[in-house]
């Protein structure tokens, strides 16, 4: 996805020649509102109104004896069902997304670091390599993973041959496979912001840090990592949020015991008659939890200019 290319270049381009971005100079007036009107209207009709409708649906009650028919109500019963019956899936979503974010960070950081400081003339090529796989539909790539990790596939075969894995062991249909799939799918969203913030950093400062602390690890911890924090922050959000709401990886790589909240929402909408209110309550809770986490996280570590 060029999406990703862009996240990288946005960061890189954000350095203004004359210091921080200038504050808006023009007075408001009619032009501002005319420019705003169509976009804001669009977001009101296709984002705010649907959210309000979703909230209303989550509070609806069912006509007794008529499954699939609801009436307007203020009934929190769906939230109670959502939080009691589907708590494991909810927890799993946050856990899997957290694990995938952590793994993606561990994999992405060396890659971003190599691109920013070691790649030299290969930098452009490496950038293309990070983005390129994402033009092949993510559904296709996830299905490819399913086959690569399958019981009769090469990886399981090799692990069994090495006796690292018992002969009954498998990778697909485990939580590990789901986390691996999530990690894979959102890795570039971690790489590019970290790369952008490292690329903006002055390598001389890191050298100076090296002279000061001598120890590579200390230099990294005290100098390099703090300088790349805006990128790490953006990357973790761009990985965690879509991972927590994903259901494709759990569907294709997991089993019934690895279902995430996304799977529940999807099946309540499409496979359960009268499942709308519970699905809406789950969606709303998921969004509230994620927004709360994002705000706490950004407050704690972040800057405003982020996204």
């Amino acid at each position, binding site marked *: 996805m060029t999406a990703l290319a862009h996240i990288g270049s946005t960061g890189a381009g954000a350095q203004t020649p004359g210091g921080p971005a*200038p504050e808006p100079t023009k007075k408001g007036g009619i032009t501002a509102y005319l420019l705003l009107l169509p976009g804001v209207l669009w*977001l009101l009709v296709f984002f705010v109104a649907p959210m309000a409708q979703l909230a209303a649906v989550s509070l609806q009650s069912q006509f007794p004896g008529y499954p699939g028919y609801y009436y307007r109500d203020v009934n929190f019963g769906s939230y109670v069902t959502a939080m009691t019956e589907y708590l494991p899936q909810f927890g799993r979503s946050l856990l899997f997304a957290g694990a995938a974010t952590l793994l993606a960070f561990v994999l992405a950081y060396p890659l971003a670091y*190599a691109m920013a400081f070691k790649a030299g003339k290969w930098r452009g090529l490496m950038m293309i390599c990070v983005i390129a796989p994402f033009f*092949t539909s993510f559904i*296709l790539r996830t299905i490819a993973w399913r086959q*690569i990790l399958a019981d009769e596939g090469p990886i399981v075969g090799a692990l069994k041959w090495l006796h690292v894995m018992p002969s009954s062991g498998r990778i697909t249909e485990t939580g590990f496979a789901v986390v691996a799939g999530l990690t894979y799918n959102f890795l570039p969203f971690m790489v590019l912001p970290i790369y952008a913030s490292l690329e903006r950093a002055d390598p001389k400062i890191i050298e100076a840090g090296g002279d000061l602390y001598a120890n590579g690890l200390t230099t990294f911890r005290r100098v390099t990592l703090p300088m790349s924090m805006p990128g790490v922050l953006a990357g973790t959000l761009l990985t965690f949020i879509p991972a927590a709401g994903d*259901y494709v990886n759990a569907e294709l790589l997991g089993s019934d015991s690895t279902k995430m909240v996304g799977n529940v929402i999807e099946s309540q909408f499409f496979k359960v008659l009268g499942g709308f209110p519970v699905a809406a309550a789950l969606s709303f809770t998921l969004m509230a939890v994620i927004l709360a986490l994002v705000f706490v996280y950004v407050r704690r570590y972040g800057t405003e200019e982020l996204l």
Partner: protein
Amino acid sequence: MTTGQKLRFWISERIVMIIAVAVLLYLFLPVAYTFAFSFNNYRKSNIAWNPEGSPTLKHWQDPCGVEGICESLGTSIRVGFIATLAATILGTMLAFALVRHKFKGRGAGNMLVFIPMATPEIVLGASLLTIFVQGFTRVGLKLGFWTIVLAHIMFCLSFVVVTVKARLQSLDPRLEEAAEDLYADPRSTFWRVTFPLVLPGIVSAALLSFSLSFDDFIITNFISGNESTFPKFVYVSYLRGIPAQANVIGFSMFVIAVLLVVVGQVIGSRRRSPSS
């Protein structure tokens, strides 16, 4: 530096690159799988290799050979174009207003743009489904092509705003000041100085929109009714076995996109080099 330190430094320098290359290979593994299985001469093409083992070119010669595959690809491309055009225009206008103008409610405007990006796709899909089914159908809008377009414009919009905003904020204000000093009126300052400078941001916003729209599955799956896009086609056909033609198309998109990126970079660097 002592020899030991030098050695350690040498290794640590290489180790980062080695890990980086390994991670890149990991990223490419499923693409290679897709490429290989586009030559598979077997009914259930993605599950196992043909027992007779001979690769075939027939899927490349007839990529539309499976019912519905090219129709769904066509739908994806049409949705992508319309959504990109609309989202780019609306988003660029929003970005100009948010960066260049001071007005009441600017903070709220920024928030309204940010929150859709921080909302998981499944929640966007669910909310759109409820309003399409329970509200919009009363005015005659059925789930299908146009509901996909409306939804795609919405989720692309925020990404366009963020992209164009970043470009606008990084502009050197002195360039526009210079134009004004040379007695350009605001209109020609805008069209001859500001707009050309912002254009690369608008172009990458459009590319971003198209790729987001083209690859979207979760939202589309909620609000598409019987209409099929390419990702939806692949997902639905997964249960029966994915036709090898899907691999052909998937890999071709990869090649086309890489070529576009390379051409774009070459043009970009040519344009930049004489001026700097």
